[in-house]
Protein backbone atom coordinates (compact mmCIF):
# COMPACT_ATOMS: atom_id res chain seq x y z
CA UNK A 1 0.00 0.00 0.00
CA UNK A 2 1.32 3.42 -0.96
CA UNK A 3 2.12 5.46 2.17
CA UNK A 4 -0.13 8.44 2.66
CA UNK A 5 1.35 11.88 2.27
CA UNK A 6 2.35 13.56 5.54
CA UNK A 7 1.39 16.98 4.15
CA UNK A 8 -1.95 16.44 2.49
CA UNK A 9 -4.04 13.38 1.82
CA UNK A 10 -7.45 13.78 0.21
CA UNK A 11 -9.18 10.89 1.99
CA UNK A 12 -7.80 11.95 5.38
CA UNK A 13 -8.96 15.49 4.74
CA UNK A 14 -12.44 14.22 3.83
CA UNK A 15 -12.49 12.29 7.12
CA UNK A 16 -11.57 15.47 8.94
CA UNK A 17 -14.32 17.44 7.20
CA UNK A 18 -16.86 14.72 7.93
CA UNK A 19 -15.79 14.59 11.60
CA UNK A 20 -15.97 18.38 11.94
CA UNK A 21 -19.43 18.49 10.41
CA UNK A 22 -20.75 15.65 12.51
CA UNK A 23 -19.48 17.14 15.76
CA UNK A 24 -20.71 20.66 14.99
CA UNK A 25 -23.72 20.37 12.71
CA UNK A 26 -26.30 20.92 15.45
CA UNK A 27 -24.52 24.07 16.60
CA UNK A 28 -24.12 25.31 13.03
CA UNK A 29 -27.74 24.71 12.07
CA UNK A 30 -28.91 26.54 15.18
CA UNK A 31 -26.55 29.44 14.42
CA UNK A 32 -27.84 29.68 10.85
CA UNK A 33 -31.42 29.69 12.09
CA UNK A 34 -30.49 32.46 14.50
CA UNK A 35 -28.92 34.51 11.68
CA UNK A 36 -32.03 34.03 9.53
CA UNK A 37 -34.23 35.03 12.48
CA UNK A 38 -32.22 38.19 13.16
CA UNK A 39 -32.33 39.19 9.47
CA UNK A 40 -36.11 38.71 9.39
CA UNK A 41 -36.56 40.79 12.55
CA UNK A 42 -34.25 43.56 11.31
CA UNK A 43 -35.77 43.79 7.80
CA UNK A 44 -39.31 43.67 9.23
CA UNK A 45 -38.35 46.56 11.52
CA UNK A 46 -37.09 48.57 8.49
CA UNK A 47 -40.23 47.68 6.56
CA UNK A 48 -42.37 49.06 9.34
CA UNK A 49 -40.27 52.13 10.14
CA UNK A 50 -39.39 53.43 6.66
CA UNK A 51 -42.58 54.64 5.02
CA UNK A 52 -40.90 55.86 1.83
CA UNK A 53 -38.14 53.49 0.65
CA UNK A 54 -38.38 50.33 2.71
CA UNK A 55 -35.75 47.74 1.78
CA UNK A 56 -33.78 50.16 -0.36
CA UNK A 57 -30.41 49.01 -1.65
CA UNK A 58 -28.37 50.82 1.00
CA UNK A 59 -30.28 49.04 3.78
CA UNK A 60 -29.66 45.72 2.07
CA UNK A 61 -26.01 46.55 1.41
CA UNK A 62 -25.37 47.66 5.01
CA UNK A 63 -27.26 44.72 6.48
CA UNK A 64 -25.45 42.18 4.31
CA UNK A 65 -21.97 43.42 5.15
CA UNK A 66 -22.51 44.28 8.82
CA UNK A 67 -24.06 40.84 9.36
CA UNK A 68 -21.36 39.12 7.31
CA UNK A 69 -18.50 40.80 9.17
CA UNK A 70 -19.91 40.38 12.67
CA UNK A 71 -21.08 36.78 12.39
CA UNK A 72 -18.15 35.79 10.19
CA UNK A 73 -15.48 37.14 12.51
CA UNK A 74 -17.21 35.67 15.56
CA UNK A 75 -17.35 32.28 13.86
CA UNK A 76 -13.76 32.43 12.59
CA UNK A 77 -12.49 33.22 16.07
CA UNK A 78 -14.01 29.97 17.36
CA UNK A 79 -12.59 27.68 14.68
CA UNK A 80 -9.40 26.89 16.57
CA UNK A 81 -10.89 27.57 20.00
CA UNK A 82 -9.72 24.11 21.15
CA UNK A 83 -6.18 25.43 21.17
CA UNK A 84 -7.00 27.93 23.91
CA UNK A 85 -6.97 25.19 26.55
CA UNK A 86 -4.63 22.31 27.30
CA UNK A 87 -7.63 20.04 27.77
CA UNK A 88 -9.05 20.48 24.28
CA UNK A 89 -5.81 21.35 22.53
CA UNK A 90 -4.25 17.92 23.03
CA UNK A 91 -7.26 16.22 21.43
CA UNK A 92 -7.12 18.58 18.46
CA UNK A 93 -3.38 18.35 17.84
CA UNK A 94 -3.22 14.60 18.52
CA UNK A 95 -5.65 13.74 15.76
CA UNK A 96 -3.60 12.02 13.04
CA UNK A 97 -4.02 14.59 10.31
CA UNK A 98 -1.52 17.17 9.11
CA UNK A 99 -1.72 20.77 10.27
CA UNK A 100 -2.36 21.76 6.64
CA UNK A 101 -5.36 19.45 6.50
CA UNK A 102 -6.67 20.90 9.76
CA UNK A 103 -6.21 24.42 8.41
CA UNK A 104 -7.89 23.59 5.09
CA UNK A 105 -10.81 22.07 6.98
CA UNK A 106 -11.16 25.30 8.97
CA UNK A 107 -10.92 27.36 5.77
CA UNK A 108 -13.58 25.25 4.09
CA UNK A 109 -16.04 25.82 6.93
CA UNK A 110 -14.92 29.24 8.13
CA UNK A 111 -14.25 31.00 4.86
CA UNK A 112 -15.93 29.25 1.95
CA UNK A 113 -18.99 27.50 3.37
CA UNK A 114 -19.74 30.27 5.82
CA UNK A 115 -19.70 32.88 3.04
CA UNK A 116 -21.84 30.75 0.70
CA UNK A 117 -24.38 29.76 3.36
CA UNK A 118 -24.61 33.26 4.84
CA UNK A 119 -25.21 34.70 1.35
CA UNK A 120 -27.90 32.08 0.62
CA UNK A 121 -29.62 32.82 3.94
CA UNK A 122 -29.39 36.55 3.32
CA UNK A 123 -31.09 36.26 -0.06
CA UNK A 124 -33.62 33.74 1.26
CA UNK A 125 -34.75 36.51 3.63
CA UNK A 126 -33.95 39.55 1.49
CA UNK A 127 -35.69 38.64 -1.80
CA UNK A 128 -39.14 37.93 -0.29
CA UNK A 129 -38.96 41.05 1.87
CA UNK A 130 -37.94 43.23 -1.10
CA UNK A 131 -40.97 41.80 -2.92
CA UNK A 132 -43.20 42.65 0.02
CA UNK A 133 -41.75 46.18 0.11
CA UNK A 134 -42.36 46.59 -3.63
CA UNK A 135 -45.93 45.34 -3.25
CA UNK A 136 -46.49 47.95 -0.54
CA UNK A 137 -45.04 50.66 -2.82
CA UNK A 138 -47.10 49.42 -5.78
CA UNK A 139 -50.30 49.27 -3.75
CA UNK A 140 -49.93 52.84 -2.50
CA UNK A 141 -47.70 54.85 -4.89
CA UNK A 142 -45.77 57.64 -3.19
CA UNK A 143 -43.17 60.35 -3.86
CA UNK A 144 -39.92 61.08 -2.07
CA UNK A 145 -40.60 63.54 0.79
CA UNK A 146 -41.20 67.14 -0.37
CA UNK A 147 -40.68 66.19 -4.05
CA UNK A 148 -42.74 65.03 -6.98
CA UNK A 149 -40.31 62.22 -7.68
CA UNK A 150 -42.11 58.90 -7.68
CA UNK A 151 -40.60 56.13 -5.60
CA UNK A 152 -40.00 53.16 -7.86
CA UNK A 153 -39.70 49.47 -7.03
CA UNK A 154 -36.56 48.57 -5.02
CA UNK A 155 -34.00 46.30 -6.68
CA UNK A 156 -32.38 43.38 -4.85
CA UNK A 157 -28.80 44.30 -4.02
CA UNK A 158 -26.32 42.07 -5.86
CA UNK A 159 -23.27 41.53 -3.65
CA UNK A 160 -21.20 40.17 -6.53
CA UNK A 161 -21.68 43.06 -8.97
CA UNK A 162 -22.24 45.75 -6.38
CA UNK A 163 -24.96 47.14 -8.70
CA UNK A 164 -26.94 50.02 -7.11
CA UNK A 165 -24.48 49.97 -4.21
CA UNK A 166 -21.86 52.59 -3.30
CA UNK A 167 -19.31 53.39 -6.01
CA UNK A 168 -16.24 51.89 -4.34
CA UNK A 169 -18.08 48.63 -3.83
CA UNK A 170 -19.26 48.59 -7.43
CA UNK A 171 -15.79 49.32 -8.80
CA UNK A 172 -13.52 47.35 -6.51
CA UNK A 173 -15.75 45.13 -4.34
CA UNK A 174 -13.90 46.61 -1.40
CA UNK A 175 -15.97 45.18 1.44
CA UNK A 176 -16.57 41.90 -0.31
CA UNK A 177 -12.87 41.12 -0.69
CA UNK A 178 -11.90 42.75 2.60
CA UNK A 179 -14.23 40.29 4.32
CA UNK A 180 -11.95 37.38 3.43
CA UNK A 181 -8.95 39.24 4.86
CA UNK A 182 -10.81 40.14 8.05
CA UNK A 183 -12.17 36.61 8.38
CA UNK A 184 -8.66 35.19 7.88
CA UNK A 185 -7.27 37.60 10.47
CA UNK A 186 -9.80 36.33 13.04
CA UNK A 187 -8.91 32.76 12.11
CA UNK A 188 -5.26 33.55 12.79
CA UNK A 189 -6.29 35.21 16.04
CA UNK A 190 -7.99 32.01 17.18
CA UNK A 191 -4.63 30.20 16.89
CA UNK A 192 -2.47 33.08 18.06
CA UNK A 193 -4.31 34.20 21.17
CA UNK A 194 -5.05 31.70 23.89
CA UNK A 195 -7.85 33.73 25.49
CA UNK A 196 -10.39 36.30 24.31
CA UNK A 197 -9.19 35.89 20.75
CA UNK A 198 -12.16 37.75 19.25
CA UNK A 199 -11.77 40.83 21.45
CA UNK A 200 -8.00 40.85 21.05
CA UNK A 201 -8.25 40.61 17.28
CA UNK A 202 -10.79 43.44 17.23
CA UNK A 203 -8.26 45.56 19.17
CA UNK A 204 -5.41 44.54 16.83
CA UNK A 205 -7.45 45.40 13.73
CA UNK A 206 -8.65 48.69 15.25
CA UNK A 207 -5.06 49.66 16.11
CA UNK A 208 -3.96 48.63 12.61
CA UNK A 209 -6.70 50.73 11.00
CA UNK A 210 -5.84 53.67 13.22
CA UNK A 211 -2.20 53.28 12.23
CA UNK A 212 -3.05 53.34 8.52
CA UNK A 213 -5.22 56.42 8.99
CA UNK A 214 -2.45 58.16 10.96
CA UNK A 215 0.14 57.38 8.27
CA UNK A 216 -2.28 58.67 5.64
CA UNK A 217 -2.98 61.90 7.53
CA UNK A 218 0.44 62.60 9.04
CA UNK A 219 2.89 61.13 6.56
CA UNK A 220 1.45 60.67 3.07
CA UNK A 221 -0.76 63.75 2.75
CA UNK A 222 1.95 66.25 3.98
CA UNK A 223 4.32 64.80 1.35
CA UNK A 224 1.91 65.57 -1.48
CA UNK A 225 1.89 68.97 -3.19
CA UNK A 226 -0.77 71.37 -1.99
CA UNK A 227 -4.22 70.48 -3.32
CA UNK A 228 -3.23 66.90 -4.10
CA UNK A 229 -4.80 63.84 -2.53
CA UNK A 230 -4.21 60.13 -2.73
CA UNK A 231 -6.95 57.84 -3.98
CA UNK A 232 -7.19 54.05 -3.89
CA UNK A 233 -4.57 53.52 -6.61
CA UNK A 234 -3.19 56.95 -7.55
CA UNK A 235 -2.98 60.65 -6.80
CA UNK A 236 -5.23 63.45 -7.96
CA UNK A 237 -5.74 67.18 -7.55
CA UNK A 238 -8.97 69.11 -7.48
CA UNK A 239 -9.85 72.41 -9.06
CA UNK A 240 -11.71 75.20 -7.29
CA UNK A 241 -15.05 73.58 -8.13
CA UNK A 242 -13.93 70.33 -6.48
CA UNK A 243 -13.59 68.37 -9.71
CA UNK A 244 -10.57 66.18 -10.43
CA UNK A 245 -8.34 68.11 -12.82
CA UNK A 246 -5.04 66.21 -12.66
CA UNK A 247 -4.48 62.52 -12.09
CA UNK A 248 -1.37 60.45 -11.56
CA UNK A 249 -2.21 56.80 -12.02
CA UNK A 250 -0.65 53.50 -13.02
CA UNK A 251 -1.39 52.09 -16.45
CA UNK A 252 -4.76 50.33 -16.35
CA UNK A 253 -3.32 46.82 -16.55
CA UNK A 254 -0.86 47.54 -13.71
CA UNK A 255 -3.62 49.20 -11.69
CA UNK A 256 -5.84 46.15 -12.15
CA UNK A 257 -2.98 43.89 -11.08
CA UNK A 258 -2.40 45.97 -7.93
CA UNK A 259 -6.12 45.90 -7.11
CA UNK A 260 -6.21 42.13 -7.60
CA UNK A 261 -3.14 41.71 -5.40
CA UNK A 262 -4.65 43.88 -2.64
CA UNK A 263 -7.92 41.95 -2.91
CA UNK A 264 -6.47 38.43 -2.88
CA UNK A 265 -3.00 38.48 -1.31
CA UNK A 266 -3.83 39.37 2.34
CA UNK A 267 -6.06 36.32 3.00
CA UNK A 268 -3.54 33.95 1.41
CA UNK A 269 -0.74 35.52 3.43
CA UNK A 270 -2.77 35.22 6.63
CA UNK A 271 -3.55 31.54 5.87
CA UNK A 272 0.16 30.82 5.47
CA UNK A 273 0.91 32.56 8.78
CA UNK A 274 -1.92 30.58 10.42
CA UNK A 275 -0.50 27.33 9.05
CA UNK A 276 2.95 28.07 10.47
CA UNK A 277 1.45 29.18 13.76
CA UNK A 278 -0.55 25.94 13.90
CA UNK A 279 2.60 23.91 13.34
CA UNK A 280 4.35 25.80 16.14
CA UNK A 281 1.44 25.65 18.55
CA UNK A 282 2.21 24.03 21.90
CA UNK A 283 -0.33 23.00 24.50
Amino acid at each position, binding site marked *: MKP*RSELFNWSRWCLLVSKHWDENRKRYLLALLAIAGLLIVWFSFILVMDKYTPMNVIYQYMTYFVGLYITGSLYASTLFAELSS*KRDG*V*GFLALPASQLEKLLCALLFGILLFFVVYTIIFYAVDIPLVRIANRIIASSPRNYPNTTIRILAMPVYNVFTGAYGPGFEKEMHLFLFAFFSVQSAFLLGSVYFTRYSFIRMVVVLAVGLLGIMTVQARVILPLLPSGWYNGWTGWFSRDAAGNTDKLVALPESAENAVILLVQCAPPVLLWIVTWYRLKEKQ*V
Partner: protein
Amino acid sequence: MQIPKFHRILVYYFTSTPSMVSIQNLYFSYGRRKVFDSLNLELKPGTIYGLLGRNGTGKSTLLRNIGGFLFPQQGSIDAFGYTPGKRQPSFLERVFLLPEDFQLPPIGLQRWIKHMAPFYSLFDKPQFERYIGEFNVPTDARLNEMSYGQQKKVLISFALATNAPLLLLDEPTNGLDIVSKSQFRKVIAGAIDEKRSILISTHQVRDLEQLIDRIMIIDEGRIVFDQDLERIASKLLFKFSFDPEEAARAMYRESSLKGNALILRNTDQEDSRPDLEMLYKAITLDPKTLTSIFHP
Protein backbone atom coordinates in the same frame (compact mmCIF):
# COMPACT_ATOMS: atom_id res chain seq x y z
CA MET B 1 0.22 -11.65 21.84
CA GLN B 2 0.47 -11.14 25.57
CA ILE B 3 3.89 -11.91 26.98
CA PRO B 4 4.69 -12.71 30.60
CA LYS B 5 6.24 -9.99 32.72
CA PHE B 6 9.42 -11.95 33.43
CA HIS B 7 9.91 -12.53 29.71
CA ARG B 8 9.51 -8.83 29.08
CA ILE B 9 12.30 -8.10 31.57
CA LEU B 10 14.58 -10.66 29.90
CA VAL B 11 13.88 -9.12 26.54
CA TYR B 12 14.73 -5.71 27.98
CA TYR B 13 18.12 -6.76 29.26
CA PHE B 14 19.38 -9.51 27.04
CA THR B 15 18.40 -8.42 23.59
CA SER B 16 19.63 -5.46 21.68
CA THR B 17 16.07 -4.17 21.29
CA PRO B 18 16.36 -0.69 19.84
CA SER B 19 14.77 2.09 21.85
CA MET B 20 11.31 3.13 20.87
CA VAL B 21 11.87 6.57 22.33
CA SER B 22 15.21 8.17 22.98
CA ILE B 23 15.50 11.47 24.81
CA GLN B 24 18.88 13.15 24.88
CA ASN B 25 19.78 16.14 27.07
CA LEU B 26 16.26 17.48 27.15
CA TYR B 27 15.96 21.01 28.47
CA PHE B 28 12.53 22.54 28.94
CA SER B 29 11.24 25.46 30.96
CA TYR B 30 8.02 27.41 31.40
CA GLY B 31 9.37 30.94 31.23
CA ARG B 32 11.98 31.16 33.95
CA ARG B 33 10.79 28.02 35.71
CA LYS B 34 13.10 25.24 34.66
CA VAL B 35 11.39 21.86 34.35
CA PHE B 36 14.00 19.60 32.70
CA ASP B 37 17.73 20.05 32.61
CA SER B 38 19.74 17.50 30.60
CA LEU B 39 17.12 14.81 30.99
CA ASN B 40 17.96 11.52 29.31
CA LEU B 41 15.55 8.66 28.84
CA GLU B 42 15.12 5.51 26.78
CA LEU B 43 11.85 3.65 26.33
CA LYS B 44 11.98 0.13 24.93
CA PRO B 45 9.15 -1.93 23.51
CA GLY B 46 7.46 -4.63 25.56
CA THR B 47 7.66 -2.64 28.78
CA ILE B 48 5.22 -0.83 31.04
CA TYR B 49 6.95 2.16 32.62
CA GLY B 50 5.76 3.91 35.74
CA LEU B 51 6.75 7.57 35.88
CA LEU B 52 6.67 8.93 39.41
CA GLY B 53 7.43 12.35 40.79
CA ARG B 54 6.18 15.08 43.03
CA ASN B 55 3.59 17.60 41.86
CA GLY B 56 5.13 20.06 39.44
CA THR B 57 8.21 17.97 38.63
CA GLY B 58 7.16 17.73 35.00
CA LYS B 59 5.59 14.29 34.57
CA SER B 60 2.82 15.59 32.31
CA THR B 61 5.26 17.95 30.61
CA LEU B 62 7.48 14.98 29.76
CA LEU B 63 4.54 13.09 28.27
CA ARG B 64 3.58 16.17 26.25
CA ASN B 65 7.14 16.51 24.98
CA ILE B 66 7.19 12.87 23.88
CA GLY B 67 3.75 13.25 22.29
CA GLY B 68 4.84 16.36 20.34
CA PHE B 69 2.53 18.80 22.11
CA LEU B 70 5.44 20.69 23.66
CA PHE B 71 8.80 21.20 21.99
CA PRO B 72 12.20 20.69 23.63
CA GLN B 73 14.07 23.96 24.04
CA GLN B 74 17.36 22.08 23.93
CA GLY B 75 18.23 18.46 23.32
CA SER B 76 16.33 16.01 21.18
CA ILE B 77 13.57 13.47 21.24
CA ASP B 78 13.43 10.62 18.79
CA ALA B 79 10.36 8.39 18.69
CA PHE B 80 10.48 5.54 16.14
CA GLY B 81 12.66 7.75 13.94
CA TYR B 82 10.23 10.69 14.13
CA THR B 83 10.71 14.07 15.73
CA PRO B 84 7.51 14.34 17.79
CA GLY B 85 7.27 18.14 17.47
CA LYS B 86 6.68 17.81 13.72
CA ARG B 87 3.38 16.06 14.50
CA GLN B 88 3.33 14.12 11.25
CA PRO B 89 0.11 12.10 10.82
CA SER B 90 1.98 8.78 10.69
CA PHE B 91 3.68 9.66 14.00
CA LEU B 92 0.38 10.71 15.60
CA GLU B 93 -1.07 7.32 14.61
CA ARG B 94 1.71 5.61 16.55
CA VAL B 95 1.42 7.56 19.79
CA PHE B 96 -1.67 7.97 21.90
CA LEU B 97 -1.65 10.36 24.84
CA LEU B 98 -4.41 9.91 27.36
CA PRO B 99 -4.41 13.24 29.21
CA GLU B 100 -5.55 13.59 32.78
CA ASP B 101 -8.06 16.21 31.74
CA PHE B 102 -9.95 15.87 28.47
CA GLN B 103 -13.26 16.63 26.80
CA LEU B 104 -15.18 14.40 24.44
CA PRO B 105 -17.65 15.82 21.90
CA PRO B 106 -21.39 15.80 22.61
CA ILE B 107 -22.16 12.90 20.29
CA GLY B 108 -22.95 9.21 20.72
CA LEU B 109 -20.17 6.68 21.29
CA GLN B 110 -20.82 4.85 18.00
CA ARG B 111 -20.75 8.06 15.99
CA TRP B 112 -17.54 9.15 17.69
CA ILE B 113 -15.90 5.83 16.87
CA LYS B 114 -17.14 6.05 13.29
CA HIS B 115 -15.32 9.36 12.86
CA MET B 116 -12.21 8.73 14.96
CA ALA B 117 -11.31 5.16 14.03
CA PRO B 118 -10.46 5.75 10.33
CA PHE B 119 -7.64 8.08 11.35
CA TYR B 120 -5.85 5.14 12.96
CA SER B 121 -4.96 2.53 10.34
CA LEU B 122 -4.38 -0.18 12.97
CA PHE B 123 -7.63 0.45 14.83
CA ASP B 124 -9.42 -2.79 15.69
CA LYS B 125 -13.15 -2.36 16.36
CA PRO B 126 -13.79 -5.83 17.89
CA GLN B 127 -10.89 -5.13 20.24
CA PHE B 128 -12.46 -1.79 21.19
CA GLU B 129 -15.83 -3.44 21.80
CA ARG B 130 -14.15 -6.06 23.95
CA TYR B 131 -12.50 -3.41 26.15
CA ILE B 132 -15.71 -1.39 26.37
CA GLY B 133 -17.48 -4.60 27.42
CA GLU B 134 -14.84 -5.33 30.05
CA PHE B 135 -15.25 -1.83 31.43
CA ASN B 136 -19.06 -2.07 31.35
CA VAL B 137 -19.44 1.20 29.48
CA PRO B 138 -22.90 1.72 27.94
CA THR B 139 -22.52 1.80 24.15
CA ASP B 140 -25.71 3.70 23.38
CA ALA B 141 -24.99 6.76 25.54
CA ARG B 142 -23.81 10.16 24.42
CA LEU B 143 -20.23 10.86 25.43
CA ASN B 144 -21.01 14.14 27.20
CA GLU B 145 -23.68 12.43 29.30
CA MET B 146 -21.22 9.84 30.62
CA SER B 147 -19.43 10.27 33.94
CA TYR B 148 -15.77 11.29 33.96
CA GLY B 149 -14.79 7.72 34.83
CA GLN B 150 -16.84 6.28 31.96
CA GLN B 151 -15.38 8.80 29.53
CA LYS B 152 -11.93 7.82 30.70
CA LYS B 153 -12.72 4.16 30.13
CA VAL B 154 -13.89 5.01 26.60
CA LEU B 155 -10.61 6.80 25.94
CA ILE B 156 -8.51 4.00 27.44
CA SER B 157 -10.38 1.45 25.31
CA PHE B 158 -9.92 3.60 22.24
CA ALA B 159 -6.23 4.17 22.98
CA LEU B 160 -5.62 0.43 23.27
CA ALA B 161 -7.69 -0.41 20.18
CA THR B 162 -5.69 2.03 18.02
CA ASN B 163 -2.80 -0.41 18.51
CA ALA B 164 -0.49 2.56 18.74
CA PRO B 165 2.95 1.22 19.70
CA LEU B 166 3.42 3.94 22.32
CA LEU B 167 0.77 4.78 24.90
CA LEU B 168 1.29 7.73 27.19
CA LEU B 169 -1.15 7.59 30.09
CA ASP B 170 -1.32 10.58 32.40
CA GLU B 171 -2.85 9.63 35.75
CA PRO B 172 -5.03 6.96 34.12
CA THR B 173 -6.57 5.70 37.36
CA ASN B 174 -7.74 9.13 38.55
CA GLY B 175 -11.51 9.14 38.51
CA LEU B 176 -11.82 5.36 38.29
CA ASP B 177 -13.63 3.49 41.04
CA ILE B 178 -12.08 0.48 42.80
CA VAL B 179 -13.57 -2.08 40.42
CA SER B 180 -12.59 -0.03 37.38
CA LYS B 181 -9.01 0.28 38.62
CA SER B 182 -8.79 -3.48 38.78
CA GLN B 183 -10.33 -3.73 35.28
CA PHE B 184 -7.82 -1.17 34.08
CA ARG B 185 -4.88 -3.21 35.39
CA LYS B 186 -6.28 -6.32 33.75
CA VAL B 187 -6.86 -4.62 30.41
CA ILE B 188 -3.42 -2.97 30.33
CA ALA B 189 -1.63 -6.18 31.36
CA GLY B 190 -3.41 -7.95 28.51
CA ALA B 191 -2.59 -5.23 26.00
CA ILE B 192 1.17 -5.09 26.36
CA ASP B 193 3.17 -7.01 23.78
CA GLU B 194 6.68 -6.99 22.38
CA LYS B 195 5.83 -4.21 19.92
CA ARG B 196 4.28 -1.83 22.39
CA SER B 197 5.47 0.38 25.21
CA ILE B 198 3.29 2.02 27.82
CA LEU B 199 4.40 4.98 29.91
CA ILE B 200 2.15 5.69 32.88
CA SER B 201 2.53 8.85 34.87
CA THR B 202 0.91 8.50 38.26
CA HIS B 203 0.72 9.58 41.85
CA GLN B 204 -1.20 6.48 42.79
CA VAL B 205 1.59 3.93 42.77
CA ARG B 206 -0.41 1.40 44.74
CA ASP B 207 -2.96 1.21 41.91
CA LEU B 208 -0.30 0.16 39.46
CA GLU B 209 2.21 -1.68 41.60
CA GLN B 210 1.51 -5.06 40.04
CA LEU B 211 1.42 -3.69 36.53
CA ILE B 212 4.62 -1.72 36.14
CA ASP B 213 7.78 -3.38 34.82
CA ARG B 214 10.07 -0.46 35.29
CA ILE B 215 9.94 2.55 37.53
CA MET B 216 11.30 5.97 36.72
CA ILE B 217 11.41 8.78 39.24
CA ILE B 218 11.71 12.32 38.06
CA ASP B 219 13.04 15.03 40.35
CA GLU B 220 14.69 18.41 39.87
CA GLY B 221 14.57 18.19 36.11
CA ARG B 222 16.15 14.76 35.72
CA ILE B 223 15.35 11.10 35.93
CA VAL B 224 16.93 10.29 39.28
CA PHE B 225 15.97 6.62 39.33
CA ASP B 226 15.28 4.26 36.45
CA GLN B 227 15.21 0.55 37.29
CA ASP B 228 13.08 -2.47 36.52
CA LEU B 229 11.21 -4.12 39.34
CA GLU B 230 13.06 -7.45 39.11
CA ARG B 231 16.35 -5.67 39.63
CA ILE B 232 14.93 -3.63 42.50
CA ALA B 233 13.76 -6.88 44.12
CA SER B 234 17.19 -8.43 43.68
CA LYS B 235 19.01 -5.46 45.21
CA LEU B 236 16.57 -4.36 47.89
CA LEU B 237 14.60 -6.20 50.51
CA PHE B 238 11.21 -4.86 51.55
CA LYS B 239 9.97 -6.23 54.86
CA PHE B 240 8.18 -5.54 58.13
CA SER B 241 10.15 -6.07 61.29
CA PHE B 242 10.02 -5.40 65.04
CA ASP B 243 13.76 -6.01 65.32
CA PRO B 244 15.45 -2.72 66.35
CA GLU B 245 18.81 -3.90 64.98
CA GLU B 246 17.30 -4.56 61.59
CA ALA B 247 15.57 -1.20 61.72
CA ALA B 248 18.90 0.46 62.47
CA ARG B 249 20.45 -1.18 59.37
CA ALA B 250 17.57 -0.13 57.14
CA MET B 251 18.17 2.32 54.32
CA TYR B 252 14.65 3.57 54.90
CA ARG B 253 12.07 2.85 57.52
CA GLU B 254 8.60 3.91 58.55
CA SER B 255 6.62 2.72 61.51
CA SER B 256 3.34 0.91 61.03
CA LEU B 257 0.97 -1.29 63.00
CA LYS B 258 2.62 -4.36 61.53
CA GLY B 259 6.02 -3.21 62.77
CA ASN B 260 8.64 -1.13 61.02
CA ALA B 261 8.34 -1.15 57.25
CA LEU B 262 11.94 -1.38 56.08
CA ILE B 263 14.03 -1.19 52.96
CA LEU B 264 17.26 -3.13 53.40
CA ARG B 265 20.07 -4.30 51.16
CA ASN B 266 19.11 -7.68 49.77
CA THR B 267 22.41 -9.36 50.51
CA ASP B 268 20.96 -12.87 50.86
CA GLN B 269 18.82 -12.68 47.73
CA GLU B 270 15.60 -13.04 49.69
CA ASP B 271 12.30 -12.76 47.88
CA SER B 272 10.20 -9.68 48.54
CA ARG B 273 7.76 -7.60 46.61
CA PRO B 274 8.93 -4.00 46.12
CA ASP B 275 6.68 -1.48 47.80
CA LEU B 276 6.77 1.31 45.23
CA GLU B 277 5.32 3.95 47.49
CA MET B 278 7.98 3.32 50.11
CA LEU B 279 10.69 3.14 47.47
CA TYR B 280 9.53 6.43 46.02
CA LYS B 281 9.61 8.09 49.44
CA ALA B 282 13.05 6.66 50.14
CA ILE B 283 14.46 7.92 46.86
CA THR B 284 13.02 11.39 47.14
CA LEU B 285 14.33 11.61 50.71
CA ASP B 286 17.85 10.37 49.98
CA PRO B 287 18.43 9.62 46.31
CA LYS B 288 22.21 9.11 46.60
CA THR B 289 22.15 6.17 49.03
CA LEU B 290 19.64 4.13 47.10
CA THR B 291 20.88 4.87 43.61
CA SER B 292 24.45 4.01 44.65
CA ILE B 293 23.31 0.42 45.19
CA PHE B 294 22.28 0.19 41.57
CA HIS B 295 25.32 2.04 40.24
CA PRO B 296 28.20 0.99 42.49
